[in-house]
């Protein structure tokens, strides 16, 4: 019998190892798996490479993971957002590495990684600093750069519903990077607002099919990052 439900976020992230590459879903707070991130802080893994569009906000969630010095390198498109001071401070002191990737290239690199495509060409970034040192090539008279697929050891993802088999649906724009991240990790760990029996999710509307999900943690009333930030909460 397939059984992917874990009894806690702590047990679901227990084997994330030092130096692991971790994809973390979310665009700002929308879709951020804050309980899984906090469990990862408690767990203690260090020297992580983390892939997320941003670098978190305030002193909770991803920002707290960075502030607790667990992240050696961020791969992201926009490390500065409202109330985000942790990453910019460490970066200005040269204490954290940054790989800046255009947002669409980042999403496509993750999609490619999950789809077994080692590299593809895109026009994004041609003529800019971010294309420097990259292989260029013309197709039909237009210039493109070569970008590489991105895979990871783990993905941490938040969703609306997950069923016993591992099928997942999301909520509105909290979907963002999570479906492609789920495909690109060796082990995909999902925190779900609700855990449901198979058959509850409409087969035509499933966004992440069961094959991509390894572990599920039910978190029925997840913390809301913006509320914690507004309240000045610091984790742990």
């Amino acid at each position: 019998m397939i059984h992917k439900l874990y009894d806690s976020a702590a047990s679901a992230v227990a084997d994330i190892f030092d130096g692991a590459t971790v994809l973390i879903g979310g665009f700002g707070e929308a879709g951020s798996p804050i309980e899984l991130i906090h469990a990862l802080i408690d767990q203690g893994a260090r020297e992580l490479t983390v892939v997320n569009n941003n670098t978190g906000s305030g002193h909770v969630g991803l920002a707290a993971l960075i502030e607790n010095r667990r992240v050696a390198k961020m791969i992201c498109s926009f490390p500065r957002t409202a109330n985000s001071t942790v990453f910019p401070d460490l970066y200005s002191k040269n204490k954290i590495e940054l790989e800046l990737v255009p947002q669409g290239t980042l999403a496509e690199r993750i999609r490619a990684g999950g789809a077994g495509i080692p590299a593809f060409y895109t026009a994004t970034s041609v003529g800019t600093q971010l294309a420097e040192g990259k292989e260029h090539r013309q197709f039909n008279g237009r210039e493109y750069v070569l970008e590489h697929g991105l895979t990871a050891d783990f993905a941490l993802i938040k969703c609306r519903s997950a069923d016993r088999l591992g099928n997942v649906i999301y909520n509105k724009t909290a979907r963002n990077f999570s479906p492609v991240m789920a495909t690109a990790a060796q082990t995909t760990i999902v925190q779900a607002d609700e855990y449901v029996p198979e058959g509850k999710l409409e087969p035509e509307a499933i966004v992440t099919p069961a094959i991509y999900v390894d572990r599920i943690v039910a978190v029925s009333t997840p913390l809301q990052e913006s509320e914690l930030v507004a309240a000045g909460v610091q984790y742990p």
Partner: protein
Amino acid sequence: MTTVTNMATGWSRQDIARKIAADIPDGAFVNLGIGMPESVVNHIPQGREVIFHTENGLLGMGPAPPAGEEDPELINAGKRHVTAITGASFFHHADSFAMIRGGHIDICVLGAMQVSQTGDLANWSMGEADAAPAVGGAMDLVAGAKQIFVATQHCTKSGKPKLVESITLPATGLAVVSRVYTNMAILDIRNGAFELVELAPDVDLQTLQDNTGATIIVPVHAETGKAASL
């Protein structure tokens, strides 16, 4: 380039948004960048149906919700609360940028730090060494959308021209901008030059030229208002 013009000169931010909105045809699929472009959504003329795309996975973005009805999982690319229109659809980030990269977005309106007369755009980095750089989706949008409109104040806060012969800040994309809307004028990028389309009512050509870092071409058909003579 002797006169430093007050930023209040000419059109207001809302005027600029209205001018842009008036140029968006019925049925267009449009992406609005963060900042001034965002207000275009409020000025689409009655009876015209324009569908707004936000790159974080929503086609059919509506206006901001009433206070108290914000949904933290329904936001735009600027991470502001929005709504979804009837007939909206949600999709993931790779699908969203496939729409952009594949040339399916008709118009994208972006802010600018600098625009060159050949349509080069700089809007992502001041080139400071120790500040963390941030690019977001700007490079994808300029490479992918069918048309790039720029919405910007004509000059920087210190009065320096943003419209220049060559950009000096790091590029977002080369030869990508087709039209620029500022508080002073609307200008097309054509044949390697800024070509005047319309001058704001209380701006004269000399003032426009003085505040621009490149030569402005004035075609005979341009709407130069009351102060047309240079």
